[in-house]
């Protein structure tokens, strides 16, 4: 099985997000990025599948800041091949644009299974897995939490609400949007990533076709929210005292 895992970087939400001068995008100058956590789970599930059943895992990403580091990390974790799709992918790239570029590249590499994160914090114009499947002419299942080999193909678990899981069997090719891997995504220390980067070539494929979102961002704004919380400050002792008063007054403690 050739498993291809598209990964991407997203803003780290631990940092405060600011809107840029255009009022339509994040101020990206000081933005800290990290690999989309669901992509991390997709890579983990792909590696677990390979370790159990053989095959190859290829991590692929659109060219962007720091993407080499993310691809080297994927290699250090066990990806056999890492591929960068080159083209103009600075700033906010729409899901439709990304999916078309990735689909063309994946088509040229060849694949049996695509596993990618079920969603990302910034995929305004749709989750990438479904768009990829559309371009690749493959079936698509999302919110997947387990991929196992079966005599005739794959057995996959898809999560519904309330903790109910649906089991499907599927043949390949297939595109899966991964919610969570069976195991916690493995951690690789920086030293190992550095080691993996030595002598490793990132294959490059130039983006061919293009597609756009068909919609445009007209405005970005912070949510106003509801009534909002009454804030009890940042001092743990004082906050704890107030919380206990609140609980007592409500008859909870």
């Amino acid at each position, binding site marked *: 099985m050739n498993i291809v895992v598209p990964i991407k970087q997203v803003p780290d939400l631990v940092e405060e997000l600011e809107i840029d001068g255009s009022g339509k995008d994040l101020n990206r100058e000081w933005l800290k990025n990290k690999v989309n956590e669901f992509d991390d789970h997709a890579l983990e599930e792909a590696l677990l599948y390979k370790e159990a059943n053989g095959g190859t895992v290829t991590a692929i990403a659109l060219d962007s800041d720091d993407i080499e580091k993310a691809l080297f990390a994927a290699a250090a974790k066990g990806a056999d091949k890492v591929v960068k799709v080159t083209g103009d992918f600075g700033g906010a790239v729409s899901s439709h644009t990304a999916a078309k570029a990735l689909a063309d590249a994946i088509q040229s590499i060849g694949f049996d299974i695509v596993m990618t994160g079920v*969603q990302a*914090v910034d995929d305004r114009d749709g989750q990438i897995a479904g768009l990829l499947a*559309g371009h690749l002419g493959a079936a698509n299942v999302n919110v997947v939490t387990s991929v196992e080999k079966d005599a005739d193909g794959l057995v996959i678990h*898809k999560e519904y609400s309330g903790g*109910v899981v649906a089991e499907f069997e599927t043949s390949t090719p297939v595109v899966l*949007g991964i919610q969570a891997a069976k195991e916690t995504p493995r951690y690789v220390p920086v030293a190992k990533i550095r080691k993996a980067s030595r002598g490793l070539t990132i294959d490059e494929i130039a983006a061919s076709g293009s597609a756009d979102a068909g*919609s445009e961002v007209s405005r970005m704004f912070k949510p106003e929210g509801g009534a909002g919380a009454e804030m009890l*400050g940042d001092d743990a002792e004082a906050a704890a005292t107030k919380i206990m008063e609140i609980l007592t007054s409500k008859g909870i403690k």
Partner: protein
Amino acid sequence: MSNIYVIVEHFKGQVEDITFEMMGKAKELGDVTAVLIGAKDLASQLGGASKIICVDDPSLNNFNPEAYCKSVDAVVAAGSPDMVLVGNTSMGMDIAAGLSVSQNMPLVAYATEISSGSVVSQLYGGKMNVESSVSGACVVSVLAGSFPADAGRSDGSPVVEDMAAPDLSGLSVKFRKLIEPEGGDVDITAQEVLVSAGRGIQNEDNVPMVEELAAKLGGAVSCSRPIVDNKWLGKTRQVGKSGLKVKPKLYLALGISGAPEHIEGMKDAELIIACNTDPNAPIFEYAHYGCTADLFDLIPALSGKM
């Protein structure tokens, strides 16, 4: 008048609330056609629509991503909707993006507000809203909880139109079975007090501290999705979209930022107290009380007072 298609989501013989939310909103925007794939008997619940298009076939009895995609595709291709509303849910995610590609219609996801030509999406874990302008026919996937479901329930008598299923032979994906969540654990939906742990608890070793606090408050531990994805707590403890909806008397959220998927599961709790060091965490918009103390200081401080 705009022609709006609403893709009906149903599970175990019930129309899901997200469908009524979308129908209510769609009625404000135009003429509503409910697209009902499988389960034709549910048409009687869809009085809020002016028309229902039913595609039924034995292979559509259980949700099958591939079969449902093909069916929705056929319905949309045969009509000319100005807008197609799909839930941004587990099932809806299997439909919306594929439809966008096959019908060459733009898609705007995570919608919380829709008007003619413009859609607001909730992005970045609920920290930013983004308004998109769309011209022409489009697909919009809607976040559950964005619109009142009651607005989509009514007793009208829509025209019911049957449409033959597309060719569903040779599907790659086959439904096998549903797996219900394991029992035996604490039922968090029945607890009056929940102490809920999020990413902020940092690692598995800190789970017992939260459990201890929950026990002192006479409640149980629940958590947000990352805790379950990392296997620090079982699936039975997960609150939110893919977990359980809870309404305890007290929901104490520790280190939970408040992504929309989590909020969906706990916003109706009677009293929500949240602790997160990020003063901009969306959880504070839904909490009644909040504090920005370090939760590793707050937990012992609270325990010490009991």
